[in-house]
């Protein structure tokens, strides 16, 4: 018996990349967009228009739990935004049977001046819950969040942990038939994350339909039965979650060299230096742009020096997908290099077991410091880190930890006395 609860047909979403829109976008969107627009066929990225989704179609049956996977810019967020009616599609049609609850961000609409109790009701109402529903699950929400003692305290006095726990607790008690969940859910400490995952599993077992977006493949595999993989705004694979994830991890290739060259071709020519190539790769891993957290990856910049400049600096920024600059590094950080005329390569290794799984952008900076930068924010190369091994593997059944880094540290646990 076919009983699709979500039916998507020929869905398309076009964005305009005009000057008008640029200043009012979030940096996070801009980075995602920048990555996606260049990774797509550069020839087609004609004047200011790009399709975040093209002819997407699938059906999801009632009670199914579906992982939505794909690299940054593949269209996952756009699809979620259309399904949750935050934004309208340009083409196509979506049919939804039942109320849709979306958890694209936890704690949306929390007001610091209001108490926990007031915020539970406000946030619940924003998420589309009725007052009666909220009142009915109020005690459960408070118990789940573990902020019982502070429920009448303004939220501004909460620790950030309490804040996120309460926010998740409200969201987790949404009683809609369809639930859209973005990976931002992964909040709080390990114990709380375990609780969240358990809650999500309960939801799935209640026969509700869940669409789950995450870069954490093990969480996807645990939580979901099916998967849809998007690539360049189109449905690439659908089916059993394990099969899709396996194919996805092996076959998805990212940031093709041609895409990087297209970005380099747009640079203004400089008399002193010509950038020939920029590559990001992981040794022993053919998946360009899709790397493993436990292995180091390399950034290699090749350029031709045509005028000797004393202050030539070659480096890059590593940016997290929320726009945070994690670090900026230059090849002369430790010692100066003398560069005569000719072709040079600066290669840097970012160690494994350092970053969290997720999306990052490598943004090279090459120029004559401080006079002029030949490459600075002109080129961005998407890097997606996935975890299959390394730090935190003991807790892979829980969720993503907070923070940007996940370094391998020397722990020593010894009995005392």
């Amino acid at each position: 018996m076919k009983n699709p609860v979500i039916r998507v047909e020929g869905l398309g979403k076009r964005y305009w990349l005009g000057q008008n829109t640029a200043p009012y976008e979030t940096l996070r969107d801009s980075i995602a967009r920048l990555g996606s627009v260049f990774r797509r066929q550069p020839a087609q990225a004609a004047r200011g228009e790009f399709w975040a989704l093209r002819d997407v179609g699938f059906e999801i049956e009632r009670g199914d739990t579906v992982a939505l996977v794909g690299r940054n810019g593949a269209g996952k967020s756009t699809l979620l935004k259309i399904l949750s009616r935050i934004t309208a599609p340009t083409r196509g049609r979506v049919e939804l049977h039942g109320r849709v609850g979306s958890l694209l961000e936890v704690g949306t609409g929390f007001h610091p001046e209001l108490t926990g109790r007031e915020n539970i009701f406000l946030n619940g109402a924003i998420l589309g819950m009725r007052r009666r529903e909220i009142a009915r699950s109020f005690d459960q929400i408070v118990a789940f969040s573990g902020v019982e003692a502070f429920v009448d305290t303004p939220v501004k006095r909460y620790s950030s942990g309490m804040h996120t726990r309460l926010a998740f607790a409200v969201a987790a008690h949404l009683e809609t038939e369809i639930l859209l969940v973005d990976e931002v859910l992964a909040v709080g400490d390990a114990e709380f994350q375990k609780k969240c995952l358990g809650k999500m599993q309960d939801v799935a077992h209640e026969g509700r339909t869940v669409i789950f977006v995450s870069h954490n493949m093990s969480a996807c595999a645990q939580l979901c039965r099916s998967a849809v993989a998007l690539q360049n705004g189109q449905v690439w694979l659908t089916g059993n979650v394990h099969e899709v994830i396996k194919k996805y991890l092996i076959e998805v290739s990212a940031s093709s060299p041609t895409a990087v060259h297209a970005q380099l071709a747009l640079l203004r020519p400089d008399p002193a230096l010509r950038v020939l190539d920029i590559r990001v790769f992981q040794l022993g891993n053919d998946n360009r742009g899709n790397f493993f957290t436990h292995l180091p990856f390399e950034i290699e910049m090749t350029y031709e020096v045509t005028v000797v400049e004393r202050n030539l600096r070659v480096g890059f920024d590593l940016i997290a997908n929320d726009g945070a600059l994690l670090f900026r590094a230059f090849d002369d950080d430790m010692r100066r290099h003398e560069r005569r005329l000719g072709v040079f390569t600066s290669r840097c290794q970012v160690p494994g077991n350092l970053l969290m799984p997720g999306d990052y952008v490598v943004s090279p900076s090459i120029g004559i410091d401080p006079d002029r930068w030949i490459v600075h924010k002109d080129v961005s190369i998407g890097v997606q880190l996935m975890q299959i091994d390394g730090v935190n593997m003991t807790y892979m059944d829980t969720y993503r930890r907070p923070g940007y880094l996940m370094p391998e540290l020397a722990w020593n646990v010894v009995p005392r006395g």
Partner: protein
Amino acid sequence: MKLHDLPRQLRTACEPRKTGPEMATVITPSAGNAPGLSDMWEQRELLYYLVLRDVSVRYKQTSLGLAWAFLQPLLPAIVFTVFFGKLANLPSDGMPYALFSYAGLLPWTFFSSSVSQASLSLVNSTSLFTKVYFPRVFIPLASIVTAGFDAIVSSVVLVGLMLYYHTPLSANIVFLPLVVAIAAAFTIGSGTFLSASAIRYRDVRYIIPFMIQMLLFLCPVAYPASIVPEKWRLVWALNPMVAAVEGFRWSVLGTPLDVRTMGVGAVGAAVVLVAGVKYFQKVESTFADIA
């Protein structure tokens, strides 16, 4: 295409719970995501919570709290009374000038604070509507309802002034709902229009204080309608706040009223309401893309 052919035990274990009548939502480019009235009714409690938030946050955040509701019309009323009433000797339809100007400032303050709050309300809550779907019109509406709440609170001062000056309540008070409807329609229309345009054009932020200031002097707040030359009266009344301010005084204090002013104002307010709401709905589906 079918998503999976997994073992069905789990599925049968949790056959769909039939929860009420099945409602299918269809999302298409044209239908977009503009909510219908039924959506708004469905989520009407959200409007209540947004108003509650605005009111209680201000009450908690500002040391004067609710007193602001009084002070907003009261302070300009004092200034007007001193300068326009005493020094410039403007006529006031036979009413004590303080009462006259306060009765004008009450609806005016409702309008001006509604519009200034509502117009920026959407821009200030981009983090909300780019993450969650709900009828966005609730955001400017909440600002307007909050200002309406203030107007009700500040009418206590009006009652006090009427008692002080021994001014009886006019029998015209039965028409007050009509006057309120004109003021509300015009305010909602301009509030929704300005809030939606502020998303696209950030200049709106700078235009509004200027516009409100200009409009104040175009409204019979500090002066009575009678000083406006007869031949200009109907053109002047195209601004529905003229009808709202004059009508409010007429229904509460029994001051004279030009009925044609009310007619023009009512039509103007209705046009602005429809245009504002239509514009809002038209651009609503693009909010999340351009905000």
